[in-house]
């Protein structure tokens, strides 16, 4: 079954959707959308460094994404507005990454594959990395779920309950770095944030509890991955962007549904 590239692609997409759903909800709740973007953009620098030092791309992107997230965490609240800081760091990392890639001689790399993903070329090895990473992210968030939710609601409430919100922030940062590293092959650095935010946002009107929203986001993400791949196959369109398009259409649909619900 795994011999079929379409089956491998679908499994990869579903794996990424699985990890992105609970993490994406926190990204939406905590208004970290730009943070996710910055971390993802930094990953291209990770790709360049991995190739330069012939390391695994997965490890390289994860390390750079983690460093980026930590730098942002440390620098935030020191003089610059968050969006300015993220704008500077995200695009600098992307630019330096692109320049660094051009220095690498010998290996010809397909930059487009890293910018927009190359889901149809997912190998069995990639698949195990994606599912391993996704399982790790979901386990991590599941383990810290109540503490994460409490710190998201109010930091002082967390302190009063014996939870350190800074530690929980670190948990999310690590989960984000892992997700970026596993999703790069599937949707590419430019669209990773979309996989985090769009399914969660689409799930919001359908949910009454945080858990419900995470599960619904997961279902929407998986559905988008499978439908998007199918559409890409039939219409001969790029796979990663097609997945994001389906998620975006779902967002539109649930938003309209919510609007209709309010009118009644």
């Amino acid at each position: 079954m795994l011999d079929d590239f379409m089956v491998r692609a679908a499994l990869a997409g579903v794996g990424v959707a699985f990890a992105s759903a609970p993490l994406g909800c926190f990204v939406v709740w905590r208004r970290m959308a730009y943070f996710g973007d910055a971390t993802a953009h930094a990953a291209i620098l990770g790709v360049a460094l991995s190739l330069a030092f012939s390391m695994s791309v997965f490890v390289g992107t994860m390390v750079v994404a983690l460093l980026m997230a930590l730098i942002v965490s440390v620098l935030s609240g020191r003089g610059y507005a968050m969006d300015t800081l993220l704008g500077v760091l995200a695009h600098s990392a992307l630019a330096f990454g692109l320049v660094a890639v051009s220095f690498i001689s010998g290996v010809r790399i397909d930059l487009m594959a890293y910018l927009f993903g190359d889901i149809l070329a997912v190998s069995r090895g990639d698949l195990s990395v994606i599912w391993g990473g996704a399982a790790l992210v979901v386990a991590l968030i599941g383990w810290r779920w109540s503490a994460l939710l409490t710190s998201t609601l109010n930091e002082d409430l967390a302190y009063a309950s014996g939870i350190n919100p800074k530690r929980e922030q670190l948990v999310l940062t690590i989960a984000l770095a892992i997700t970026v590293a596993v999703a790069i092959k599937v949707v590419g650095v430019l669209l990773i944030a979309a996989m985090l935010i769009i399914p969660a946002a689409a799930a919001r009107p359908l949910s009454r509890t945080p858990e419900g929203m995470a599960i619904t986001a997961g279902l929407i993400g998986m559905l988008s991955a499978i439908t998007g791949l199918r559409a890409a196959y039939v219409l001969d369109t790029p796979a990663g962007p097609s997945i994001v398009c389906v998620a975006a259409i779902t967002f539109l649909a649930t938003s309209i549904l919510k609007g209709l619900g309010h009118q009644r």
Partner: protein
Amino acid sequence: MSLIQVEDLSVRYGARTVLSRVSLRVEPSEIVTIVGPNGSGKTSLLRAIIGAIKPLQGRVVQASSLKIGYVPQKLHIDETLPITVSRFLKLPGGVTAADIDYALTQAGVPELEKAQLSQLSGGQFQRVLLARALIGKPDLLLLDEATQGLDQRGSASFYQQIETVRQNTGCAVLMISHELHVVMSASDRVICLNGHVCCEGTPAVVASAPEYRALFGTGTGGALALYRHEHDHGHDHADHCHDHTEATE
């Protein structure tokens, strides 16, 4: 023995000292109110007690196995986060349906169990926060200007609820209040804070203390002065309006 004992506590943000050598105690079942102008370190003191900020010097000693219920100043629930009241109350873990029922009844809002948090009115929301603080059956309730944004009637009935809770559960209460007239009726003890403890004692003693008068101005004395002060402190103490909001962000 005291529930909490704050000893020689100093807190500094950058180069600015917001609390210097503050000491206080809270005994079982008493209601203690902290008053003070904006920027006097009230919120910082409470945050130091719950461990959200590290003091420069001094320490906070808690009675062994002390359970604290904390009601924050305000809590902004993002529209994007769907959560019902009962799910919110279950967050600490190990909470049963009976616990939720008990806490909501104590807080005076048993009917809100299934409501969405983002749909509540200001008054209802503060009651739910109170229920959340009560759910662990605390020995000490900490309230940080819990009635901010409520109208006169809303805050009066909120503080009445606090007294009822104290009667029913016997927990002690340490609260910050801007509404100084409340101090007169609901507190056993008042601590007047302005970076340091200016004066403390029963509400009547504090209201007539010269240190208190110096901070809050002289009026006709008693409750009326306290009450009046509430309406003009914004002008009198405009120069103090910096630290407080920063400290709570």
